[in-house]
C-alpha cells in the first residue's frame, strides 16, 4: 500500500530525512521509534504533504501513485490520515462543524452530496462511544482549551470519522492517562481491518502492548537503521538506543 523509496527531505539546506525506505502493506501495523529529533514527525509531515519541508529526492508511492504529486488535501482524500503530535487550535469552529466540513469535502471528491445531519450525528455518537468521549466535545471549538489528552483523543475521533486507509499516529500516547491510553488503543484496534494500515510513532512499549505491531523500525538521524518484529521494541525499552545508534553512527560517519 505504502512504499517509500530513498526519501530525502529537509528545510532549506538542512537535510532531515536522509534516505528513508519503508514498505507498509494492507493490514499491517508498523511502529517507528527513535530518539528525540531523529526525524519521526518530519517523516509523517512529509507523507502528509506539509510544505514546510522540501523534498529533495525519492518517492512515496501510495497504492501505486506518488503522493508527492498531490496536495495535502488530495492525499487526505486518498485515505492518508495523520494524528498530529501537536494538534492545532481552530478558534470559533466547533468539533462537529469541523468534522462536517472534512466529511463534506471528502464526499465531494467521491461525487456525493452533503451528508444528512441525522446520519452525521448518529455516526459521531457511535464513534464517541467507541472512544468514551463526553457529549460536550462536539460543541467545543477545535482543540481550543483542550487538555493534552483531550487533543489526542480528538485526533483519534477524527480518524474514526474519516476511516482512512493509512493512519499515522504521531505520539498519540503522549499526554494520555493510563485509562485513556487503553480506551484510545482499543478504539484504534477496533478500527483496524485487513484493508487499512497503521504507522505508530511512539517512545514507549506501553502503547505497543495494546496495539501490537507487526514491524518495529528505529529511526535515527534521518535513516531507518534497524527493523525487526515486536520483540525489537522490548529490547529497546530494556537497553535504550545506544547499542543500535552506535553501530549506525560508525557506518554513516556521524
Amino acid at each position, binding site marked *: 500500500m505504502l512504499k517509500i523509496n530513498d526519501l530525502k527531505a529537509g528545510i532549506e539546506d538542512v537535510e532531515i530525512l536522509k534516505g528513508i525506505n519503508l514498505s507498509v502493506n494492507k493490514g499491517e501495523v508498523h511502529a517507528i521509534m527513535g530518539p528525540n529529533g531523529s526525524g519521526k514527525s518530519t517523516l509523517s509531515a512529509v507523507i502528509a504533504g506539509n510544505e514546510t519541508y522540501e523534498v529533495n529526492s525519492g518517492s512515496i508511492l501510495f497504492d501505486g501513485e506518488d503522493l508527492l504529486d498531490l*496536495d495535502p*488535501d488530495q492525499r487526505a482524500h486518498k485515505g492518508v490520515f495523520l494524528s*498530529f503530535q501537536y494538534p*492545532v487550535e*481552530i478558534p*470559533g*469552529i466547533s468539533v462537529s462543524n469541523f468534522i462536517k466540513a472534512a466529511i463534506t*469535502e471528502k464526499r465531494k471528491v467521491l461525487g456525493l452530496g452533503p451528508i444528512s445531519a441525522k446520519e452525521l450525528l448518529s455516526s459521531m455518537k457511535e464513534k464517541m462511544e467507541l472512544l468514551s468521549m463526553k457529549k460536550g466535545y462536539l460543541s467545543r471549538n477545535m482543540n481550543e482549551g483542550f487538555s493534552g489528552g483531550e487533543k489526542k483523543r480528538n485526533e483519534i475521533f477524527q480518524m474514526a470519522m474519516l476511516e482512512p486507509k493509512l493512519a499515522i499516529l504521531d505520539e498519540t500516547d503522549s499526554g494520555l492517562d493510563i485509562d485513556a491510553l487503553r480506551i484510545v488503543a482499543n478504539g484504534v484496534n477496533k478500527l483496524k481491518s485487513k484493508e487499512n494500515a497503521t504507522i505508530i510513532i511512539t517512545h514507549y512499549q506501553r502503547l505497543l502492548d495494546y496495539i501490537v505491531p507487526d514491524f518495529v523500525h528505529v529511526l535515527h538521524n534521518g535513516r531507518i537503521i534497524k527493523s525487526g518484529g515486536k520483540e525489537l521494541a522490548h529490547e529497546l525499552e530494556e537497553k535504550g538506543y545506544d547499542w543500535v545508534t552506535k553501530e549506525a553512527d560508525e557506518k554513516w560517519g556521524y
Partner: protein
Amino acid sequence: MKKEELSEDELLDQVTSTEYKYGFTTKMDSDTIPKGLSEDVVRLISKKKNEPEWMLKYRLEAYKIWLSMEEPDWANVKYKKPNYQDIIYYSAPQPKKKLDSLDDLDPELKKTFDKLGISVNEQKRLSNVAVDIVMDSVSVATSFKSTLAKLGIIFCSISEAIQEHPELVKRYLGTVVPSGDNFFSALNAAVFSDGSFCYIPKGSKCPMELSTYFRINEAGTGQFERTLLIADEGSYVSYLEGCTAPQRDENQLHAAVVELIALDNAEIKYSTVQNWYPGNKDGIGGVFNFVTKRGICHKNSKISWTQVETGSAVTWKYPSCILKGDNSVGEFFSVAVTNNFQQADTGTKMIHLGKNSKSTIIAKGICAGKSDGSYRGLVHISKGAKNSRNFSQCDSLLMGDKCGSHTFPYIEVKNNSSQVEHEATTSKIGEDQIFYCNQRGIGTEEAIALIVNGYCKDVLNQLPMEFAVEAQKLLEISLEGSVG
C-alpha cells in the same frame, strides 16, 4: 515531484480575479435631474417629491450648513475627493406608479433582485421578512405593509412617511444626527431622496424582521438615503439592511444617515450586510461609503448594531450609541473585510450619559491584498454616568504582508465608579492551521473560509439566521484566493 506551488504574489493576485458578483446594471428608464448641486437642485428634489414646506425648509437649512463645512480628512483613508458638482442627486426608476405589492414590480427590477439573489417572492414566502427596496434613490416597493399595519407598525419609505406621518417625522428627524453633525450628514439632509421609515408603537414586538435593500444603479448618481427608526416605549424590532451596486469605473458616492430612537424599555437590533462595489483589482472605481449611523437609548433601552462590511472602495462609518437613559445598553458587533485596494476606517462611539449604562464592542477586521483597515472607536463615560461599563475587543486578522491594520481606541472616563476594558489582538492565519485542515481533506480556500468564519463567529452569531448565511457567503467571496 511536487506540484508547482503558487508564490504568495500569485496567490494574492488570484484574489483580485474574483469578480464582484453583483456587478451588472439594470436597463430601466429613469427620471434623472441634471448633475450638480445648488439651492435650486434642493428645491427641485423637494418639489419632485411633493414635499410640505417644513421639509423644504429643513433641506435648505442643511444645504446652507453644508456650504459652510469642509470635507473631513482625519480618517485613515486616502481618496480623491468627489466633485460634488459632478454628481446626479436624484434618479428615480420609471414608471413611478405606486405599488401595493411586490408582484406589481417592474419586471426589469424584479430581474435585478433575482440576480442579487434576493428573490423577493421567496423571501416573502419563506423568511417572514418585510422588504423595502431603495434603488438609486427611490423606494420601490414595500411588502407586508398590511400585516404590519394591523399591529400599528409603520414601515414605509421616508418619502411616504413625510406625506402620511409628518408629525412623527417632524418630531424625530435630525434629533440624533443633526444636519450640522458632519459634512456628509449635512449633504444628506439637503438632498436625500429616499430611505426607510419605521415606527413601532408602545409595547409592540415586531413579529418579523424588517429589511431594506439598497442598490445604486444609475451611472453618475449618488445615493443619499435616510433611515429613521423609532421604537416606542417597551417595543422591539429587528431591522436588516443590505447594499449592492453595479461595477463602474468611476467612484460613486453613498452618503447615508441612519437615526435610531429607542424610547424607554425599547430594543432595536440593526443589522447591515454591506457589499457595495469595492472597485477593481487596480483600485479603479468603487463606492465611497460615507455613512453616519447613530442611535439614542432612553431608560432601560438597548440598541445593537451588527455590521458585516465587505464592500466599498472607501468606508467611513461609525455606528454609534448615545446611552442617555439610566441602565441603557449599547452594542456594536462588526466584521470589516478589506481586500485589494479597499480602505475602511470604521468603528463606533459609545457615549455613556445615563447611570449603569453598559456597552460592548466586538470589532473584527480582516485585511487582505493591499488594503488598509482601521478600527476607530470612542468610549466616553461622562461624569454623571456612574457605574457604567464598557468592554471592547478589537481583533485584526491579516492575510499576506501587503495589507495594513490599525486600531485607534479613544477612551474618556470622567468618573471613578465606571469600568472600561479594552482588548486588542492582531493575528495571521497560521500555515499550521491551514495544513491541519488540508490534512483532513479541507482544501486551502475552504480552510480559510472556515478559519475566517471561526474568527468572526461572535459577530455572525448576532445576525438573524438567513442573513448570517448570506454574510458567510460574502466573506468567502471577498476573500477567495487571498492566501498568505
